[in-house]
């Protein structure tokens, strides 16, 4: 049973560019949450998708946007990249929203902005 799959694993972008990260949730899960983890810090909540809609959002600018598809997979888009956007981006899936149902995390996408 595949867990959460994220792609790509690493990428390097130039400041000002746009990037799209992808996430396939664990089989049977219908909710996807995205986190940004800067070096040496804890994961920061970006947003959560359920039923193809953004259900909750953390303190991130509108440059960060997302999408959830009918098969529950999700994309995270970041526009006008800044050096400070360099981080590990983690996707977590769950059966229904709410931490109580248990989150399964992917291994992340390491984004470097130069």
């Amino acid at each position, binding site marked *: 049973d595949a867990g*959460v799959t994220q792609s790509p694993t690493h990428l390097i972008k130039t400041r000002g560019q746009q990037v799209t990260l992808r996430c396939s949730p664990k089989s049977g899960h219908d909710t996807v*949450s995205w*986190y940004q983890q800067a070096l*040496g*810090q*804890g*994961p*920061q*909540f970006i947003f*959560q998708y359920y039923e193809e809609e953004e259900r*909750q959002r*953390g303190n991130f600018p509108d440059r960060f946007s997302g999408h959830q598809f009918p098969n529950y997979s999700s994309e995270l888009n970041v526009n006008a990249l800044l050096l400070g956007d360099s981080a590990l981006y*983690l996707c*977590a899936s769950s059966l*229904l*929203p*709410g*931490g*109580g149902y*248990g*989150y399964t*995390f*992917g*291994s*992340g996408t390491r984004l470097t902005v130069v």
Partner: protein
Amino acid sequence: AQSVTQLDSQVPVFEEAPVELRCNYSSSVSVYLFWYVQYPNQGLQLLLKYLSGSTLVKGINGFEAEFNKSQTSFHLRKPSVHISDTAEYFCAVSLNNNDMRFGAGTRLTVKP
């Protein structure tokens, strides 16, 4: 909104010694509490969680945590650590159907 404070950024300990990683949360309502472990270049793995019931929660790899509502704490313990326990540990909190919020992490280093 809920928040989590991990009181120690780094905890060095010798192999086979006991360890406690401290976590305090702030919330005016009931919460779900979690501990996750992160090995280098990997995602987060769930160690244990408290949803309700017994305040002593047992998890994987010999870890356990105790929920203390009066002190709003959820400290993680292990009676005897191994070299392989060296990792980053994160405490997290979730309110009912809300998202999960994480602390800044505690780097556990087990020395031989």
